[in-house]
């Protein structure tokens, strides 16, 4: 009941925001004002991810406006709480608001699927910085997002094997225990990790579990890990749960290697878990700080906060739309065509070019190891 009420409140605010800001941009269209939207969780349990991504979008807009005088870029906030049920109620308003030329997002795969019908109908180009579910760019799936959906992040079928490889590196005859948090992100990723393990020489899968993402007592899972004799434990859920879990695993006396995917990839993870996190291995995408310290310092100066997860991806996605605006693509149809044919550089140095299903050509995952309370980039997992 509690959640329902919150959802409907969120819908009302999101709708008000969308329409309110939309009308502002109409009024001032003559002074070259354009709107792009960011959609992701801006309130609720997943809000930190969305706020981080939206900050990167706003940062990109700020840099663009500073470099191109005479343009005003409005970033419309679309809060879907990362929840498909909320997304399906905020998306119609955004789909119908023709002032919005493109959407950076949606951040989460489930929310993306729920939003897609409205964006397809509106011909609105989407570039997600973080929706990694494979089915979104699979033309044979009902979830297929083409031609409007694009993403600047590698898919989970690339991440799974990379995570399997990175987790077991340096462990001979690894006995691996894999568990998920029952979310739509973690369950398929676990499948790709398990598939990837088959290709790792000497590694065997010795057990698994599926733990609700609200769990804080992991003692049954720890008991299973001890019974299975696992030397490597892989978790495909998110960082906050991972931090609670790793403490309990270490407190039980286990010294098994712990590894997680990009859901665990967050500098908050070693901060939350403290000493227990030391040596943990995480695959993820490098943030702005990984690109250059100077960029991160500038971000902090302009935005007042540090950059977070998927900041590179959100920044890249926003820049594609901004370069479209600069190239005079100021209708949705022109923008969508522009994005589909786009070819340009990511700030990570890779070339962004979408294939016909909306995926980028690269999907490189970096490996990070926790050292002295910080996840340190150890390079691309090969």
């Amino acid at each position, binding site marked *: 009941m509690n959640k329902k009420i919150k959802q409907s409140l969120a819908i009302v605010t999101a709708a008000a925001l969308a329409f309110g800001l939309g009308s502002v941009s109409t009024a001032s269209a003559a002074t070259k004002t354009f709107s792009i939207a960011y959609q992701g969780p801006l309130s609720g349990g997943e809000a930190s991810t969305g706020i981080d991504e939206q900050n990167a979008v706003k940062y990109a807009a700020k840099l663009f406006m500073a470099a191109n005088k005479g343009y005003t870029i409005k970033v419309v906030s679309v809060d879907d709480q990362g929840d498909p049920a909320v997304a399906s109620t905020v998306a119609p308003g955004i789909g119908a608001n023709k002032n919005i030329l493109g959407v950076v997002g949606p951040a989460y795969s489930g929310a993306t699927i729920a939003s897609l019908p409205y964006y397809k109908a509106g011909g609105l180009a989407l570039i997600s910085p973080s929706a990694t579910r494979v089915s979104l760019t699979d033309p044979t799936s009902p979830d297929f997002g083409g031609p409007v959906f694009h993403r600047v992040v590698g898919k989970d079928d690339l991440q799974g094997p990379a995570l399997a490889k990175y987790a077991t590196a340096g462990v001979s005859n690894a006995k691996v225990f894999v568990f998920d948090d029952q979310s739509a992100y973690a369950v398929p990723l676990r499948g790709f990790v398990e598939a990837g393990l088959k290709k790792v020489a000497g590694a065997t899968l010795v057990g698994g579990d599926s733990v609700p993402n609200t769990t804080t007592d992991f003692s049954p899972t720890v008991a299973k890990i*001890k019974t299975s004799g696992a030397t490597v434990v892989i978790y495909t859920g998110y960082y906050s749960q991972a931090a609670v879990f790793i403490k309990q695993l270490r407190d039980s006396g286990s010294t098994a290697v712990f590894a997680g995917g990009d859901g665990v990839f967050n500098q908050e993870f070693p901060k939350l878990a403290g000493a227990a996190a030391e040596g943990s291995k995480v695959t993820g995408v490098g943030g702005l700080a990984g690109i250059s310290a100077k960029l991160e310092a500038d971000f902090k100066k302009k935005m007042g906060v540090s950059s977070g997860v998927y900041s590179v991806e959100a920044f890249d996605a926003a820049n594609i739309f901004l370069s479209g605006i600069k190239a005079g693509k100021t209708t949705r149809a022109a923008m969508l065509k522009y994005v589909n044919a786009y070819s340009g550089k990511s700030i990570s140095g890779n070339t962004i070019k979408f294939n016909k299903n909306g995926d980028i050509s690269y999907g490189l995952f970096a490996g990070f190891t926790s050292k002295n309370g910080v996840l340190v980039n150890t390079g691309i997992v090969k």
Partner: protein
Amino acid sequence: MFSVLIDQFWSLTIAGIALGFIYVLISLGYTMVYGVLRMINFANSEIFMWGTFGTVVTNRDIFHYTQTSEPAHGFKLALVLITSLLMSMLVAGLTAVFVEFVAYRRLRMKGTNRLATLISAIGISIALQEVMRLLTSSRPVGSPRVLEKIILTEVWGANIRLDTVITIIAAAIIFFILERFIKLSRMGKAIRAVSQNEDAAKLMGVNLNRVITTTFLVGGLATGAAGFFYITVFEYTKFNIGFTMGMAAFTAAVLGGIGNIRGAFFGGLTLGLLEVYASAILGTQWKAVTVFIVLVLVLLFKPNGLFGEAVQTTRA
């Protein structure tokens, strides 16, 4: 299937009892208020969540522990633990009284029906949660490790850890004190009188408002103590942890017989053990399914829970 249970039986049992005691203390918050007002205090889950922050703030901001600092020992350890326990109880107790003033008292005075207070309780629980979300920028908060999790001894292959031992013993003591308070003190008698017959109690000169506020306070103190133990064991909190823990504790209260203090005790322990055993045998994904199947079965045969709803008789 049963290999994990056999191999790790005692580890699981101890973990289940420690978790069970946390449930016991939270379910006291539900049961006390229900016993007196015949209403579910839906804000109790958020009172618990605020309680956990009492301990985190004490460790982090009063005693300046950080994630990298050494755990405390000896006298300092006792001082920090007791201060944070009292702080959590204080924060949760005051929050509970605040909830009573804002969400219950005025509506009760106006003689509105019960559904109105139900909604206002849900309203205030959303407000409590959202305020904490804004204060913590939606992020999870880790508590520094103050209590080193030393393995005291090994019994039947299970590690007996200091934090679980402290949780079990201290939670049992707190439960016992509160139970005695209700049973023996003058105020406890007044609480029981109101729960038996509100009108008769009023005629006997019982100050109804004071009794209800005290009930919320005592329930809040127990719930706050649960927050302290939760942090001691799991060292983690977030603005949204209340829902899951509150739901579990409410289930425990219903399982034992809501409104019944002894019921909360056995309901909490049963639930804690049931959860870890079910997770170990069937897989954690079956935990909630098992718990609620057991709840439905119990309610089928004993509609008032294991120990019945008869607050008046069991408390007397």
